[in-house]
């Protein structure tokens, strides 16, 4: 999402703004292609080698990539989730690497004109000025702009694109890279490991609290593009960081693939909050592996919003490996026509006194499909662990669908686990009540839906909350009548 920012306001203002916007998906515009390098279609060893060479990578990273390529080729497609759509992916038709410009800029003015205009339209520089501590903007395969506030840099906080991170802090990267998500974890993690490019690298020193969010913005522009960013966040003991990512792409008639790998490491007593607002256009496959490790007394939160894409399969995971570690996953999904949001969470309790909560809220409309897929695993010895899972689904019409696939593997007796799931329909009486107060059917529906998402929205910085409400309103306008 982007931050098309404005002053804080009541959500009721948004009704007007909606009317002034003609199309459903306002990020659907595309730029003329003007690249420094664009690989051919399909995936070969040669492409992997040339990505690594162009980036001047150390030998170990090239080896890592090639091993991953081998794993990718051997691994079968997942046999769960939406197999039909997964098997439609044509790996030979994808562009695996596109380099839009020579280098990433620190100065906004030096970003190539066309790309700059795109991000201007998406409101990125404005967002940065207003409330962000640092920004990374990735266009196709590479980060084209990146900045961090000087005071954070002075405190030793590292916020770079992943490629620069590898170049400038090789030791830290080598120590942590792929330790949370091995290449062999799944077919798409292997693919990412082979061709990864861009993403964020964040390292927060012991005890440093980054109070204002760091943000990354991902944009796919080319048709049949594959974007494979790689993000690694390391929070040293007692530190805190909040990272926000947003994603958009133009609307094409054929599909693009976004397959990221995100690894979080929260050391003793550290706290990481990771917020995603995914608003890909409806021709993007969004197959992402996200996993965190939380050490003793650490806390990890995934705040995950999925609005766009054709198929999303994403189950942010938290491994609670230290005593008293705490994990939270709060996710919302909005599934419209021809969309399938298959999202959820995985929490692994591997130490005593660990706790977790999962709240998943989904809305399906116009024949869209939303699935919750979750795993709670409690290892023996993880005594006194607590977990609560809550899934609420809201169906806006008869044609839409919602499913839950919860799995519990509990190998320890002294644990408390709660699971609650509800499915509801937008109440006729609620609609009537709001309409009797002058709201049109679309406005009334949007209000009910926004209310349903409120537990999520209230966790977002205000600007994002306003934008999210507005996007939902747009979706509702598009679905009535």
């Amino acid at each position, binding site marked *: 999402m982007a931050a098309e920012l404005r002053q804080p306001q009541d959500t009721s203002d948004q009704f007007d703004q909606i009317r002034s916007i003609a199309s459903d998906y306002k990020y659907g515009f595309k730029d003329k292609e003007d690249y420094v390098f664009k690989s051919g279609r399909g995936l070969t060893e040669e492409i992997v080698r040339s990505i690594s060479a162009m980036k001047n990578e150390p030998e170990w990273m090239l080896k890592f990539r090639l091993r991953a390529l081998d794993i990718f080729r051997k691994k079968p497609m997942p046999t769960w989730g939406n197999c039909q759509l997964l098997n439609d992916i044509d790996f030979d038709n994808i562009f695996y690497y596109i380099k839009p410009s020579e280098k990433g800029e620190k100065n906004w003015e030096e970003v190539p004109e066309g790309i700059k205009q795109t991000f201007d339209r998406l409101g990125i520089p404005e967002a940065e000025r207003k409330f962000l501590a640092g920004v990374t903007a990735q266009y196709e395969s590479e980060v084209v702009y990146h900045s961090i506030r000087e005071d954070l840099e002075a405190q030793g906080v590292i916020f770079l694109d992943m490629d620069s991170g590898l170049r400038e802090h090789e030791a830290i990267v080598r120590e942590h890279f792929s330790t949370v998500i091995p290449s062999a974890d799944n077919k798409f993690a292997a693919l990412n490991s082979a061709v990864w490019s861009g993403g964020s690298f964040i390292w927060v020193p012991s005890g440093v609290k980054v109070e204002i969010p760091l943000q990354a913005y991902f944009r796919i522009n080319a048709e049949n593009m594959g974007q494979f960013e790689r993000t690694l966040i390391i929070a040293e003991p007692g530190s805190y960081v909040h990272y926000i990512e947003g994603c958009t792409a133009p609307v094409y008639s054929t599909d693009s693939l976004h397959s990221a790998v995100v690894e979080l490491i929260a050391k003793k007593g550290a706290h990481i909050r990771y917020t995603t607002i995914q608003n890909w256009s409806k021709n993007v496959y969004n197959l992402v592996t996200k996993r965190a490790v939380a050490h003793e007394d650490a806390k990890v939160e995934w705040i995950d919003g999925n609005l766009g894409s054709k198929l999303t399969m994403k189950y942010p995971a938290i491994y609670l490996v230290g005593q008293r570690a705490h994990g939270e996953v709060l996710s919302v999904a909005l599934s419209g026509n021809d969309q399938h949001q298959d999202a959820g969470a995985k929490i692994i309790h591997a130490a005593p006194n660990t706790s977790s909560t999962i709240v998943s809220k989904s809305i399906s409309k116009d024949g869209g499909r939303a699935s919750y897929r979750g795993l709670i695993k409690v290892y023996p010895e993880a005594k006194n662990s607590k977990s609560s899972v809550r899934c609420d689904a809201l169906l806006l019409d008869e044609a839409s669908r919602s499913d839950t696939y919860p799995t519990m593997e509990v190998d320890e007796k002294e644990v408390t686990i709660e699971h609650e799931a509800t499915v509801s329909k937008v109440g006729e009486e609620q609609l009537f009540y709001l309409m*009797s107060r002058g709201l049109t059917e679309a406005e009334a529906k949007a209000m009910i839906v926004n209310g349903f998402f409120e537990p999520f929205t209230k966790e977002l910085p205000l600007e994002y909350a306003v934008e999210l409400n507005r996007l939902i309103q747009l979706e509702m306008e598009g679905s009535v009548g």
Partner: protein
Amino acid sequence: MAALQPILKIEDLWVSVEGKDILKGVNLTINPGEVHAIMGRNGSGKSTLSYTLMGHPRYHINRGSILFKGEEIGDLTPDERAKKGLALAFQYPVAIPGVSVSNFLRASVKAVRGKEIPVKEFRQELKQQMALLEVKDEFLSRYINDGFSGGEKKRLEILQMTLLKPALAVLDETDSGLDIDALKVVSTGINTLATKETAILLITHYQRILNYVKPDFVHVFQSGQIVKTGGSELSEELEERGYDWVTQELTPSGVA
């Protein structure tokens, strides 16, 4: 002076819900500035009338007409009716979790008035009405009717009426469930509504509220019809004698 145009003119209105006839020939005319009270037994169709007036999709008009300021509104959606100046205070207001009262009120007032109201101006107006109805500030950030007590819901309904300033306010048992003090406060609110231009249709079971809000007409509702109309003295008689005598009056002795 030209003949007064009624705000509401209901003629021979027949309404069914889920295939069951509930309203069976209602006739009622309400002029600007008038206060009408409707009393009647449980299940006699009072709320059905209020829902039908507001345009609930499940209530089907099989016969008759509803003229609002001279215009047939039977085919309009609830929001269109609201914009024309009709409002309903619900007998059972529904909760809408996650939607704050302040956002909702602002959206609603803007929709009905058809124009943006500057935030400051709106706040001021809101604060004023809230003070009148003794609604605490904290309610603004709470979710609509979510966890509200019965009396709190009713106050919020009247608050909405005073903000929307409709030409006709239909109040469905707004007095039910109010404590003695709240009844006075809410009555004050209703009386500020009752101006020369605004009419009120007040559905109630109790004489009590009519001590504060003086009705020009009292109607007795029975089996989906208005079977008797009188002045404010009629409500006192009903309070004293119940409904049986009305029924008997209608049924010639020995026929039943």
